[in-house]
């Protein structure tokens, strides 16, 4: 176990950011049910997204300078980091397109869904991001055991979110008459959550891969793959930061 000073301060920072995110999510929920202000919800979502993108996905690492040397691990990791971010930018356009579809078809109405259940699955995903950040910080400092524990927790929470949406939320919606073919609300809801769930699913596969390989000590020194899986996982969280208010909080409920 390596517990450097930097390690502790990074873990502390992750905790602090998680507290901010939790408070903002609670605030968001409160705003939605008490006076439903769309601009305010948008601001809260933006602040949350910026926090995750900066502190959990550490976008600033893109500007890290390293000597140009094709064969050096750090330089290759930097190239891979750029490639991953380019991919995420591309992927953002899918979700942005879905958002445009939702706004165009539904405007200031939203699918009739259980708001408490929505808050519950959101909380699960948010907590998973916290553990992912912990796991990543630990492996960067050579703490394999801590990494494995935290990644396993992330995986379980992620699986919980996926099953919560697909098995519980979808079934409840269909029972209530909100089906893919029932109208624009149903179509938007199933398409958006479906696309997001597909990304959660691929994220879970990545987590499983880094967990298995990490257990065999592959990332004790060269830990970029863990960073990549973590950044992807947080990206999926950022998408949900916008989808959650769009589907559960904004406007009035319709079938």
């Amino acid at each position, binding site marked *: 176990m390596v517990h450097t000073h930097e390690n502790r301060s990074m873990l502390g920072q992750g905790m602090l950011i998680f507290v901010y995110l939790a408070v903002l999510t609670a605030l968001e929920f409160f705003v939605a049910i008490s006076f439903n202000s769309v601009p305010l919800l948008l601001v809260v979502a933006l602040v949350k997204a910026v926090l995750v993108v900066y502190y959990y996905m550490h976008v600033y690492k893109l500007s890290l300078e390293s000597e140009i040397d094709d064969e050096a691990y750090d330089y290759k990791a930097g190239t891979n980091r750029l490639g991953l971010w380019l991919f995420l930018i591309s992927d953002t356009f899918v979700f942005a397109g879905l958002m445009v579809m939702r706004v165009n*078809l539904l405007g200031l109405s939203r699918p009739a869904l259980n708001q408490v259940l929505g808050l519950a699955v959101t909380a699960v995903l948010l907590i998973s991001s916290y553990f992912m950040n912990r796991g990543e910080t630990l492996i960067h400092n050579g703490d394999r055991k801590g990494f494995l524990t935290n990644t396993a927790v992330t995986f379980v929470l992620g699986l919980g979110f996926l099953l919560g949406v697909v098995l519980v939320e979808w079934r409840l919606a269909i029972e209530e008459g909100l089906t893919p*073919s029932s109208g624009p609300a149903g179509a938007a809801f199933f398409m958006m959550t479906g696309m997001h769930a597909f990304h959660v699913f691929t994220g879970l596969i990545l987590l499983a891969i880094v967990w298995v390989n990490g257990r065999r000590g592959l990332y004790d020194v060269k830990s970029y793959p863990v960073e990549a899986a973590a950044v992807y996982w947080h990206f999926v969280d950022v998408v949900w930061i916008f989808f959650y208010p769009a589907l559960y909080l904004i406007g009035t409920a319709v079938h």
Partner: protein
Amino acid sequence: MTNMNPVVKGLVLLGVAAAIGYGIGLGLDLLISGSVNYNGSVSAAFALLLAVTAFFFGVYGYRGITRGLVFQVVGTVLGGLFISGLRALMGSETVFGTFFFSEPAWVFGALVGVISFIFGVGVVRDWVQWARGLDTAEHHEDPPGGGKYFDVSLDHKVIGIQYTVTALVLIAVGGTFALIFRTELAASQLQFLTTTFKLFNQTGPQFYNTLMSLHGIIMIISILLGVSGIMNYAVPFLVGAHDMAFPRLNAFAYWVSVPASVLLLMSLVLGGFDTGWTGYPPLSARAPVGMQMFFLGVFTAGWSSILGSLNVIATVVRMRAKGMSAMRLPIFVWASVATSIIALTATQLIGLSFQLVMFQRLFGMGFFDAAKGGNPVLFQHLFWFYSHPAVYVFVLPGLGIISELLPVFVRKPLFGYRWIAMSSLGIALVGFTVWAHHMFTSGMNEYLRVPFMYSTLLVAVPTGVKFFSWVATLWGGKIETPTPMLFVLGAIVVFLLGGLTGPPNAAIALDLHLHDTYFIVGHFHDTIFGGFVFPFFAAIYYWFPKATGRRMNEFWGKVHFWLMTPSFFVLTLGMMVVGLKGMRRRIVDYDPALGFDFSHLVMTIAAFLIALSVLIFFINLFYSIKKGEKAEGNLWNSRSPEWQVPSPMPVHNYDVPFEVVGEPYDYGLKDSKYIEFSPNGSKHIEFTTKPEVEPHH
């Protein structure tokens, strides 16, 4: 059989397999529906899939692409049967649907087929190893000879040529489709695509619609692949890298385009589709199963475009030679970056819009179904958000090629380097804001029209900058006119015509009349030929010696140019003339009283002459690979780094790295120098085949 030329062997096997596939299809038809349909889709689908596979089996044996295609066929059938089985278990009444498989079965089968192809061809092998925690060799050596082009290679030059050849094959296919329907249009009334004509479950007019739609999309995909081909081939050695940033992703991006092309051909036989390449709902929501194959094919090809452009950006950002600052980048690299920015981001929107229609058809989700509260105009917004910027994806690399080659053949510096570089980015960025000019007549909110008109007119500014630079570069130059330069000059003139006919369409008042006429058809053929096809041919003539060590025949190159250019003018100017007089696009027939018969006849003859010139090009290309005049040195007397090393290009480009010490296009200036080879030029370490780390076992 063993002594046969592989291509002949492939063609023989193609014939045999087509017959067998046709027989299987007829048998299945008989089994399921109790009657034999000689023009049916099942037999044609089987014939097509088996024939393509058998051809590559004959050419290359059961390896590489053949293995991929076999996997695709098996995957398609198994995927289809899986869904058919599920539907049977669920008690669905129309398990087999019209075409043996029901629509969901075909869609799922096609999807499984694409994924199977990827695994079959072996392009994800290294990634699977990495996921299992095993290390693989950093580089893979390709075997010598032509076989590497049919197999997975990580070398950017091989992949570039694979892309280019695939693009040329698709151009031939799409062009053939055009010739078929152009023949039908040569005279009014229906001649051979009549209502009694029957093929692939389609009547003559339906078949016309399918060919017209497929001509559009196959040409678009072939342009995207051609763009990727030239970018893949040239960008790494222009910036001094030994390969792309992500060689495996690069190979992956190429290989997904192969099953995508197969899917597009499948759409022809599976009932076709009649929407044009735009696939607007509500028509696309009820077209035959071919529509779904089209959606899935474009979706798959889109991934090729997205991942390829991701790679280009990463390569340019991370792998440039020492001293190659932003303002010393070759101009083609600037154009590639601009193009890649569009392709990386906007492509997702066409993928999404097509996916939404697919889901509307499969699951009854009413995104674009007005009866279910959906909005058909929403589709057009999502679709054009990509599909307009897409035309800049097509033309920006071509315009980059013009700027890249012009100084070489004029022997003087490129005029206004900075402005040219920035104008590519300018076109790319303004291009994101113009999409709704395709929708002036589609019932979108009227207040949106004027802003989109102005943003569209704004595109003419950066484009004008390019023309100004080209003319100023030509001014007072010592102009040489070998074949590549002819095509560059042709591109400038044709693109000018395309450019000048653009702003009239952007003006709302005119567009309301010009919309959906042959004027538009003439306009975009001019922009695409000027912006892509002519520069593409120029690039092939220019870099062919770099790839093969031989040059293409000059005489036949010039015949190609002088036959194609005037014919092309006749064709597109004819289109614009009949368009202005009211000829609608996308229709199989027109009223003889309109008096267009003669114009159409002339256009058809011109189209055949273009086809003849392209045929000459193909023969020249094929012949020159082995028998062309040797050209191993700096054939065009270029300053560009790739011409300072012998042709064909060494496997990892530069044995000794170079350093940029001057401006790239200072032709004719005394003592000016662009690059200097020096062992310390950059830290690119010389190529080794040893894995960097010992594999963990």
